């Protein structure tokens, strides 16, 4: 008798998700589905509104990455009104953005993805959380995490006008600048952030890399997919979160395409499947071949490991050293090891801190000229940014008064959605045999997608929202025969 196991919703990821695993008569995995109860209609909701509302409105899509949406939207407005921000505003935007990336990535390591390694993938669930992490690394370190996060968020509050939802982005620049004193203060916090980033990488090295079973898990076959990769690079093909060209490399690491954001429709296409609301992105020229990896499949990946894979290096020295270390251990570039996303994320934390220092040390960021006023009539605007969870594109079309006629958003997790499905299915097939599904096994399946830090555009806050993990087993007639719940 075949049966269906549902993990719904998945715990400890940003937003809500559900996994259905179908077992065959022998208790082996027949198929696994990763589904997202996506909330539709945001793009339609925006149409008919003034385009300049978008930087603040699009933040409402998601309570997790408001700064990414704010700046992708602001850049789309630059493009819409054909106006470039002055150098000072551009740098200040990038500084604010690196502060956001630092905080978001750090939170993921200590609170969301880290517990699987710091505490152990098969440890009791009561311990696999931030409380367990603090128990392992100590109260003082816990205090430091809270403190540095708060101080880095203060950088964002100083620049963006709000500690959470930026209100500073305007077409052609920013609504205000910072003072020389504020610049110095930001530089001081950024230096502290770098020290803590290095400390965190040391924690990762001590706890994960010195543990052979963890390293085996990272480099092993279960969490491994040979795919294309995509991310933003600067003019030297180095990682850049704020701006640059979109670069795609093939599974051998060879450059496949490199293009500007406005050309995205020539390279990326969406695929709809009947069992989910998610629109899966894939490479148009390669085509959709189903949920398979390899050079013949158009599935690609984004976010930290992908960004490192598509680049020729990091633009800052200490991040570059960590980048080299990562690829040395993983056996060269590109690295196809899904769990290495956690490591790549920490390399990016170092980069974000170093880049904050560079920008805060530049006196120009405290300049007075923060905006070039738009002079041209609006038409069409496309903005791109590297969100923590991958490449994010905002595309607006307006009438001559700047009223939105059409909105298209390609959100970060959409790029990774097909790969996440493959990763979940592969982990399920590897760990579930003869119908044995323990709590530890389920967590090992969850780890396959937690590495991506997926976010599902779910900004509801209603209680109870995230429910305990539910496992439901159905027979062939879809009759519920077993119900398990993690309380």
């Amino acid at each position, binding site marked *: 008798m075949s049966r269906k196991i549902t993990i719904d919703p998945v715990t400890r990821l940003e937003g809500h998700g559900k996994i259905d695993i179908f077992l065959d008569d022998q208790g082996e995995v027949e198929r696994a589905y990763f589904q997202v109860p996506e909330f539709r209609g945001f793009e339609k909701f925006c149409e008919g509104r003034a385009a300049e509302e978008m930087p603040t409105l699009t933040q409402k899509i998601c309570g*997790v990455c408001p700064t990414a949406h704010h700046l992708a939207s602001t850049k789309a407005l630059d493009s819409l009104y054909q106006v470039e921000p002055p150098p000072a505003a551009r740098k200040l935007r990038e500084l604010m953005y690196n502060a956001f990336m630092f905080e978001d990535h750090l939170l993921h390591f200590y609170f969301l993805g880290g517990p699987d390694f710091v505490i152990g993938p098969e440890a009791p669930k009561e311990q696999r959380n931030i409380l367990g992490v603090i128990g392992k690394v100590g109260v003082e370190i816990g205090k430091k995490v809270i403190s540095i996060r708060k101080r880095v968020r203060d950088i964002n509050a100083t620049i963006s006008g709000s500690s959470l939802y930026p209100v500073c982005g305007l077409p052609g620049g920013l609504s205000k600048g910072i003072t020389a004193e504020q610049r110095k203060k930001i530089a001081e916090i950024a230096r502290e952030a770098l020290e803590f980033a290095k400390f965190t990488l040391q924690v990762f090295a001590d706890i994960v890399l010195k543990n052979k079973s963890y390293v085996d898990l990272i480099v092993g076959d279960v969490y491994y997919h040979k795919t294309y990769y995509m991310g933003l690079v600067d003019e030297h093909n180095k990682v850049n979160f704020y701006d640059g060209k979109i670069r795609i490399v093939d599974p051998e690491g060879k450059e496949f395409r490199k293009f500007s954001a406005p050309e995205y429709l020539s390279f990326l296409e969406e695929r709809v499947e009947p069992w989910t609301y998610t629109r899966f992105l894939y490479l148009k020229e390669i085509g959709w071949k189903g949920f398979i990896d390899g050079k013949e499949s158009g599935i690609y990946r984004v976010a930290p490991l992908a960004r490192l894979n598509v680049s020729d290096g990091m633009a800052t020295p200490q991040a570059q050293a960590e980048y080299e270390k990562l690829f040395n251990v993983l056996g060269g570039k590109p690295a196809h090891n899904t769990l290495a996303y956690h490591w790549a994320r920490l390399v990016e934390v170092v980069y974000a801190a170093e880049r904050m220092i560079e920008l805060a040390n530049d006196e120009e960021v405290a300049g007075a000229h923060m905006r070039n006023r738009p002079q041209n009539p609006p038409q069409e605007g496309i903005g791109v940014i590297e969100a923590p969870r991958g490449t994010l594109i905002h595309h607006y079309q307006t009438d001559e008064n700047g009223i939105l006629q059409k909105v298209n958003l390609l959100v970060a997790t959409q790029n990774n959605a097909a790969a996440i499905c493959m990763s979940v299915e592969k982990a399920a097939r590897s760990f579930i045999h003869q119908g044995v599904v323990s709590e530890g096994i389920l967590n090992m399946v969850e780890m396959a997608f937690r590495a991506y830090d997926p976010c599902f555009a*779910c900004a509801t806050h*209603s*209680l*109870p929202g*995230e429910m305990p993990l539910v496992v439901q087993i159905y027979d062939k007639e879809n009759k519920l025969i077993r119900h398990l719940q993690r309380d």
Partner: protein
Amino acid sequence: MAKTLIIGLGNSVRHDDAVGIIAVRKLRERLNNSVFEIQEVSETGLHLLSLMEDYDRVIIIDSFATAGYAPGYIHRYDFQQLMSMSQPYASHQLNLPTMLRMAQLLHMNIPKTIVIYGLEIERNDAFGEGLSLKVNQALPHFLTVIEKEVSECA
């Protein structure tokens, strides 16, 4: 005088999910602002925790989407009830009891009194403005109940 913070939690463009935000906007007009601080918040987890630091009392107003209660039903949980639940409070990052336990572990200065008020809602599955009819009808009584509790303790 004890410092009280009233937090309206929700997403202002997702129909009934906005009820916490709408509630605090109305309370701002009705309550003495020199006694209470009021904030509209759309993020939970660490951000919510950091907002609560250094207050004596925090009232959180949120939307509830549970099975088994009719739209308009009023939920109320105090700190003790909250801490005794395994995972009663949702967030996109971490649930509130875990956050509060972490705060205790790290000796953070969290409020002695935390109360969560929730109004059972009908829809939050699409983007849009405006509350559903039943939630809108329940709102005045919901506000009266909250106003009574916060004023009595002020």
